[in-house]
């Protein structure tokens, strides 16, 4: 893989992460029992979809085959999406959603902060914009995570289960593959080992504040970054892509 191919793959993957998480959150728009959380979820989902659009537009330019952001979102198959398995996990209950967001966004914010210093100007620009949004999300999601953990016996036990079940999907965020390595070497990209250290320290502190127990690292699932997804993702893109697949080229 050469430098240009790695950049395209890297940018597409950033778009995939943002789109898949955004789409998951869109599924529960208008389903929240409280207005404040309803707005928070919809606002956050919109940020992710917006970030996906910026990454995909750039990927289309890098690829140079005339594909736009919609082509990337609606006309690629399941195994062409290279997002983390964590992000395609079903929404579950509120504690599941908050735990998922906390685990991912604590990583994503560190990644974006590192990307603001990378040598690819466009990626750095998108990262500057996106990190401000994620910082705001994280404040909200961290507060909720602590409140649920340090809340009632019921909420404590349920969010502990959320954390235990999602933990196995956090390993692949920090496992560098060829694309990460080339991006780090050629574009002054993020050092995932360093990010992992900071992430672990930050998460350990938040989990302790939430009076919860940190799960063991004994088994970590992987494959999302290579396009091998769980069963959940097939259903998800079937719904997401239905319109464009059935009525190709449909527009407003």
């Amino acid at each position, binding site marked *: 893989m050469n430098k240009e191919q790695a950049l395209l793959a890297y940018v597409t993957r950033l778009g995939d992460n943002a789109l898949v998480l955004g789409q998951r959150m869109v599924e529960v728009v208008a389903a929240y029992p409280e*207005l*404040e959380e309803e*707005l*928070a979820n919809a*606002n956050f*989902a*919109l*940020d*992710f*979809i*917006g*970030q996906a*659009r*910026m990454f995909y537009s750039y990927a289309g330019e890098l690829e140079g085959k005339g594909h736009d952001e919609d082509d990337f979102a609606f006309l690629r198959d399941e195994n062409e999406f290279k997002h983390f398995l964590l992000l395609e996990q079903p929404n579950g209950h509120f504690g599941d959603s908050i735990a998922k967001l906390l685990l991912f966004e604590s990583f994503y914010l560190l990644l974006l902060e590192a990307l603001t210093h990378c040598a690819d*100007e*466009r990626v*750095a*620009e*998108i990262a*500057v*914009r*996106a990190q*401000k*949004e994620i*910082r*705001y999300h994280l*404040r*909200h999601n961290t507060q909720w995570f602590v409140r649920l953990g340090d809340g009632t016996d019921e909420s404590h036990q349920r969010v502990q289960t959320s954390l235990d079940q999602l933990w196995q999907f956090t390993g692949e965020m920090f496992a560098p593959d060829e694309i990460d390595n080339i991006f780090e070497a050629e574009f002054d990209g993020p050092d995932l080992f360093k990010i992992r250290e900071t992430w672990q320290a930050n998460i350990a502190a938040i989990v302790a504040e939430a009076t919860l127990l940190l799960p063991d690292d004994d088994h970590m699932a992987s494959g999302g970054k290579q396009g091998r997804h769980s069963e959940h993702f097939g259903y998800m893109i079937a719904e997401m892509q239905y319109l464009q697949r059935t009525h190709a080229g449909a527009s407003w």
Partner: protein
Amino acid sequence: MSWLSAVPDPEIPVLTITDLGIVRDVTIGEKVTVDLSPTYSGCPATEVIEQSVIDALQENGVDDVVIRRVLSPAWTTDWISAEGRNKLREYGIAPPEHGASKRELLQGSHGIACPRCDSTNTQVVSEFGSTACKASYKCSDCLEPFEYFKCI
């Protein structure tokens, strides 16, 4: 520039796009190029604003308009003009008060002045509001609810 300062923000029509500080540059050559900074990544108003700029210039006889989306430096609420802040306050939305520092984003804003009675005895009702850029507050003195334009 004066033609552009007549273009309202579609979400908060009391503000123009120049009040918001999203017009970064205008280059006049064979074509007219307008550089715009999007506010939030997912702001649904981005396309509407771009179309309004094209329409405003065409009304004034400029047909060849190119819009460029400029991401860097990223738009911040610090760029909202003093006039824009006054207009927001008169409209009933508390303008972003402090700089968009990291601390502000992580810890939230306290002591936001009520746009109606100026009291700083106010409380957050919801960190989220009718659009991505606003939070909901309540004044504990005049008891009126109001919106606060968040720092970003």
